Structure formats: structure tokens, C-alpha cells
């Protein structure tokens, strides 16, 4: 991705309650702070009841339709492993996938009506995509709070955007500074953990 006239299309997915929409909002704020036009739109059915959530973010010189159509996403960010797999068709061939390997198993799988995919990461890799997978939930818990998973995911995206990572970090911290200043530090750490997780994973691969 480059910062040209082209619109950048980022699809963030997960399940209700994971903070998908907030993360996308922060990403949008970062893009807006650089003067880009941006539109963000959700398909969040009954997201509050742990349903499927996707948030589309498009930014560039001017954004008309807010929707990303199949084949036009440049980056897919999956907050949950199977959800990342569910949305791969939105990507252009060879695009980037950043995904949490953490799983949220729904009741329909628990009661045996459906199976959870054996290895979502491997399945996505097999499609020829540039996959970076890491355990965001574990990283968040390392800092003592599963809710930081959101910021870990944002950190993971930071070096895959058409603007410097610092811009996104500032947007994250600005948000906490205005709402919950006591959480700024731990979010800075979470952000860097996510960033490092992707960098290290890239080295290992």
C-alpha cells in the first residue's frame, strides 16, 4: 500500500463485544488527522449478541461509497481466527491479513451442529495471502486485561498502513488521554506488543 490517490480499504472483522468498531474508529481518526477523507461503515447485525461484526474503513482523497466490495480490501484485520477466514474473499489476491489466533467458539459449534475450522491460519496461508498471525488475547492478558486486545491489534496494524506507525499510536493514546488517562501507559505497552508481535513473526517466517 502506498499513500497515493488510491483509496485504501481496510476491513476489520470479529465478533460483537471485541471492540472491532472502536478499533476501526481509532484507525479512521488517524487517517483523518493526516487530512484524508474517510468513511467507516459497519455491518453489525445483532453485534451486541456476539454475532459477526465487520467494520469497513475507506480513506483517501475523496471517499464516495463507504462499502468495500469483494476483491477490493487491501488489508484484513481479524480479531478472531475463524472470522478472519470468513472474510478472506473481500481481499484482493496477495493482500495482507493480520489476525488474532484466539478463538471464540459459538454455541452452535458447542452443541455440535457445526465444526470450528481446524487451522484457520493455515487455511488462509494456503490461499496465497500474506498472513501475520499472533495471539493478541494472550498478549493482552500478559498486561493483565483482555480488553487491551483491541490496542494490541491496532499496534499490529501500525507498520502495514500507508502512513507512519506513530500517527496511529498518537490516535490511540489521544483517545485514552481524553477518556481514561490512567490507561494511557498500559495502552502504549499494548500497542508496542502488537507491533512487535508482527515484526517478530515476520522475521521468523
Amino acid at each position, binding site marked *: 500500500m502506498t499513500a497515493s490517490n488510491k483509496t485504501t480499504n481496510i476491513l476489520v472483522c470479529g465478533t*460483537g463485544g471485541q471492540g472491532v468498531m472502536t478499533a476501526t*474508529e481509532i484507525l*479512521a*481518526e488517524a487517517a*483523518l488527522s493526516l487530512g484524508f*477523507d*474517510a*468513511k*467507516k*461503515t*459497519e*455491518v*453489525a*447485525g*445483532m453485534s*451486541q*449478541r*456476539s*454475532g*459477526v461484526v465487520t467494520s469497513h474503513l475507506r480513506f483517501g482523497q475523496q*471517499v*464516495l*461509497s*463507504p*462499502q468495500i*466490495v*469483494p*476483491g*477490493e480490501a487491501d488489508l484484513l484485520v481479524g480479531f478472531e481466527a*475463524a*472470522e478472519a*477466514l*470468513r472474510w*478472506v*474473499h*473481500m481481499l*484482493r*489476491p496477495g*493482500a495482507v491479513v493480520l489476525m488474532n489466533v484466539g478463538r471464540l*467458539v*459459538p*454455541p452452535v*459449534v*458447542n*452443541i*455440535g*451442529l*457445526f*465444526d*470450528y*475450522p481446524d487451522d484457520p491460519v493455515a*487455511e488462509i496461508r494456503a*490461499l*496465497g*495471502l500474506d498472513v501475520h498471525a499472533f495471539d493478541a488475547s*494472550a498478549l493482552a*492478558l*500478559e498486561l*493483565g486485561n*483482555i480488553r487491551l486486545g483491541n490496542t494490541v491489534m491496532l499496534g499490529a496494524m501500525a507498520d502495514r498502513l500507508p502512513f507512519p506507525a506513530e500517527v496511529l499510536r498518537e490516535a490511540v493514546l489521544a483517545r485514552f488521554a481524553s477518556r481514561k488517562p490512567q490507561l494511557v501507559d498500559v495502552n502504549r505497552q499494548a500497542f508496542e506488543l502488537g507491533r512487535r508481535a508482527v515484526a517478530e513473526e515476520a522475521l521468523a517466517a
Partner: protein
Amino acid sequence: MGAPLPAPAASRLFLSGNEAVARAVWEAGCKVAAAYPGTPSTEILEELAHYPDLYAEWSVNEKVSLEVALGASMMGARAFCAMKHVGLNVASDALMTMTVTGTEGGLVIAVADDVGMSSSQNEQDSRYWGRFAHLPVLEPADAQEAYAMTKAAFELAERHRCPVIVRMTTRICHVKGRVEVGERVAAEPSGFTKDARRWVMVPGNAKPRLPLMFEREAALAAEAETSGLNPLYDGNALSVGFVASGPAFMHVREAFPDAPLLKLGLSCPLPLKKIRALAERVQHLVVVEETEPLVESELKAAGIACHGKDILPRLGELAPDVLRPAIARLLGGEAAAPAHVPAQQVFPRPPTMCVACPHLGVYYTLSQMRNLIISGDIGCYTLGAGHPWNALDTCISMGASMGMALGMDKGRGAADANKKVVAVIGDSTFLHMGMQGLLDITYNRGNVTILLLDNRAVGMTGGQDNPGTGRDLHGEEAQRVDFAKLCEALGVKRERIRVVDPYQLPVLFKALREETKIEEPSVIITDRPCVLIDHYQPTKPYLVVDERCTGCGNCVEVGCPAIHVTRRETEVKASGKEVELSFVRIETSACTGCGLCVQPCAPEAIVHAEPVHPIQFLRKQ
């Protein structure tokens, strides 16, 4: 601490369509705003609650909210009301006559259609109301337009002295974009003028007003021809010209940037001359509208040849990936679909009830009983129709569980003679439209057992307040309805009304068994709150002791999403019968300790977890 001050004029904010409408309503100097929650419109009033200098309320239903707005308008105040598409069906009785009286202070109705049906029971097109009621309809295409058109709507409403409908869709309500906001201009209500010929709609007064309504419509049609709300985006690709409104406008611009495009911002009444002029210039005129072919039919009736639903889908959104191939086919070709990664099969993830939801025990109990016909309603409890309970048989419209249950009772034949009719309804739904149905049941001696699930919240739409919660839109203390007394007043015998704790399964089971046996109306009220409300108190969580779990799967039947199956086995009993076993674990960090799943666990494998640090807990696993 007061509410944060509204952002200053000229700020460029990143707002959703709903937030943008709220801002515009405030800036327009609106005095009274009323709504009943409904996705995707709910956030408009939630947002307005934070603005100063205006009265905002949750009304008990949409009809009342519109009547509140009309009353304010009669006082000469600007008034606003918001609802989801089906809400306007409820409010339509008032609407169809207020179009005859007209309004005084500008009255704007924002109605949100759920195009794509992400959270509704149907996909109806609210633009029909504009035609039906002879009222103007504005259709914003993004958040900035939602803001600008809401302000324009107030002016239009006052110029023509009639309500104006702003038709939103899910894609407008929940899309965020940059919005440049302006200054609030306060407006002082002009005062109520007693005028029976204007406000008292008996036939003698209403009849002379009908011609005025048609004159108004003609004036609006003339205005539509020149209005800045209906701009022409010229283009040099003259093979196809477009007429589009709402989100579809953006999709057309995105997909066909060089085609001439007439945007309908004021889409009812139609600017027919302007459209005819465009039609004459292009080879094909295509109307792109979500969802019904309203504009298309009117153009055809006016003798303007066009395409619409003959080449575009009747349902859902008309995003660029839908438009491109359809237009390519119209021109005799095929659009090359962008290369994309092939779609993968993944299990469905339907919405579920929350961990520890007070409805879980109700559905677990219902699922264990036989010979019930369960007339359902709309709310979180509609999910009881799904797995693992399969314990809700109908869902039509708000409050319908009551009347349908009575109809089931009266309409049953020999095939259903031994069935018990049960109705399940939530607190907010009961107050919205269910009470009247209960009165009908008692009045007409129906034999129905009603489960009134009082979870102190409008759960489905995100936990809003209502007269059952004892708090108003601002979270301030308000009159709280006493459901037991209300049901008694509606004619249910006092001894047939029970208030039970839905986490006490034996009590619930006993109440249901006894009440369904008695052949008269009875009401079982559950009284534990939705877990989303602010003061919900989780208690000590549970875990499953591996060695004790026999894999019976009883706890899985409760349907709490914190319970996970870890492995399945098939056991062959001494009798030769095969039984499926499901061994489980509880996600202790999610469990709130409600104690439901503990009750059906015979081997007592579910025990309190000691408070554990999440990291230690992970290691233990």
C-alpha cells in the same frame, strides 16, 4: 458534572448519520424530540439526550412519540421524532391525519429503513409513506447529507406547514464520515392558536382541508424541480444516465463516475421535468433505488422509459459490485469482476443471548416442557427460537404475542385440544403494544399463560430505559410501572399473577406447570435484570471439575455462551443404546456466577472458582 458542551460551529467532526441528525436537530433549535428505540435509529435520541436546551424523551411507542412531536409543533415549536421503519407503521394512524391538519412549528420525522435486514423483521420501504400521506421525503446519502438535509427538512416543514420525512437506511445511520457542523439558532415557539377548523379533524373540518393538502403537494412538486436538493451531476458517458437516491447515489458515483446522474435528495414528490430532460439525453435511463421500485413506477406512469428493478435486485443494498455487472449486461456485455480470494465456508455465528442472561432460565424451562405452543414477540427473547432451546414458535410484530395467543386459543381444533398456549413478551414490548392485547385476552376470557420477562431494559436495542426501568432517557429517576398491578388492572386475577426469579429453575418450572393447567389468563413475571444494565452485579464465577463431569450435557442445554464443550464421546450403554456425551468447561473469566447451569448438573461438577488472576487461570488450563 454537566454533559460535555457541543462541539463549536465550523468544527469538522467524524460523525455517524445518526449523530449528524442529532446535531442538526439541535442546531435547528428544535424544542421537543421523542422516539422509541429501534435499530438502526436508536442512537439519534441517545445522542440528542446529551444536547442542552431541548426536551428529549423515550416514548412508550412510536405512535406516542409522533403525537408528542405533533403537540409541540401545534405550540409553534420545532419538533422531531425518530423511529425505525416498522415504527412508522405503528405511528401511521397519527401521520395520516396530521398531513391533513398540517403542522405549525417544523416537524421532522427521521425514519430508518433496514435495507439489507441486519436487524429487523422485514425490509419495507418507508418512502411509500410520503406518497401515501402526500408528504415530502428527503433521502440523505451520507452523514454530511444527513446533517444538512435534517436542517433543510425543518425549513421545508415550516415553509409548507407539513411534517417532513427524512428517510435514512442502516447504511446512513451507521456510516461515519466527516461532517462540518454549524451554529445553533434558537427558535421561540410561536404559540398555540385555538382553531377547531384546523385542529379538530371531524369530517366537516377535515374535508375542506383536503384540497389544501393537494395544493401543498403541487407546490412541493414545483419546488422539487428547482431545489438544490436534486442536483444533476453531469457526465459525458451518455449510454447510461442514472437517477439515484440515498446510499445508492454514492454507489453509482463510485461505480460510474463519468455517467450523468440526477441525485434525488427531495425524492417525493419527484422532479419529473428534470428527469424527463435527462432521459432524453441518454440512451438508457436507470433508476437506482433501495428497495422498492417507487421512483421507477412513477416514471413509467409518467411515460418516461427507464430501467430499474428489471435489471437490479429488488432486495438489499445496491453496492458497486451489484451495479457494475447489471449495467454491463444492460449494455450487452459482461463486467469483469475484480479478482478476489475465493470465499471459504465457515460455520454461521448467529446472535446469542448474553452470558447469564435472565431469559436463559425461561427458555431452558420451556424447552423441557411438552405440549406447549409458544406465541413469541420481539426482543432478545426472540432468540429463544434458536438453539439449543427451540422454544419460541412465532414472532411477527411488537406486542403480537398477546393477540396471537388469544387467536390460537380460540382457533384451536381437535389437533391442538391438549396443547397449552403460552405467550412470551418482554417488558418494553409489553408497554409498547402488548398491554392492549392482554386486555383483549382477559376481556374475551382467553386461556393463555403469559410470561412477562421484566429485565428492566430494552435489551435488544442496547439496554435503553423505559417506564419499566424507573429511569428516563437521561438516566434520571422516573416513575416505574408496577407490572403486577398493571396486569391486575388489566383484568388478570391477583392470584393468577406471580413474580418469580428466573434463576430459580424449580420455582419457574412449578409456576409454569401450575399456571398452564389452570384454564384462565395468568401472568408469570420474571424480575431479574438484563446483564447489560449499569448496575448489574456479577458474583463469584464457576468452573467445571473435570473428574466429576459425566458428559451428560445438561448444562449445555441452558444455552449460556460461557459453557464450552471440550470433547465429545459416544458411549454404548449396557442396553446397547448409544449416547452422545459432551464434556464441558466454563470460561470462568466470562461467567458471572448466575448459578443457572449448576442446577441441572446432577454430579455437582460445577463449583465456584476461587478468584484467580487471569494469567494463573490460563496456566492452569
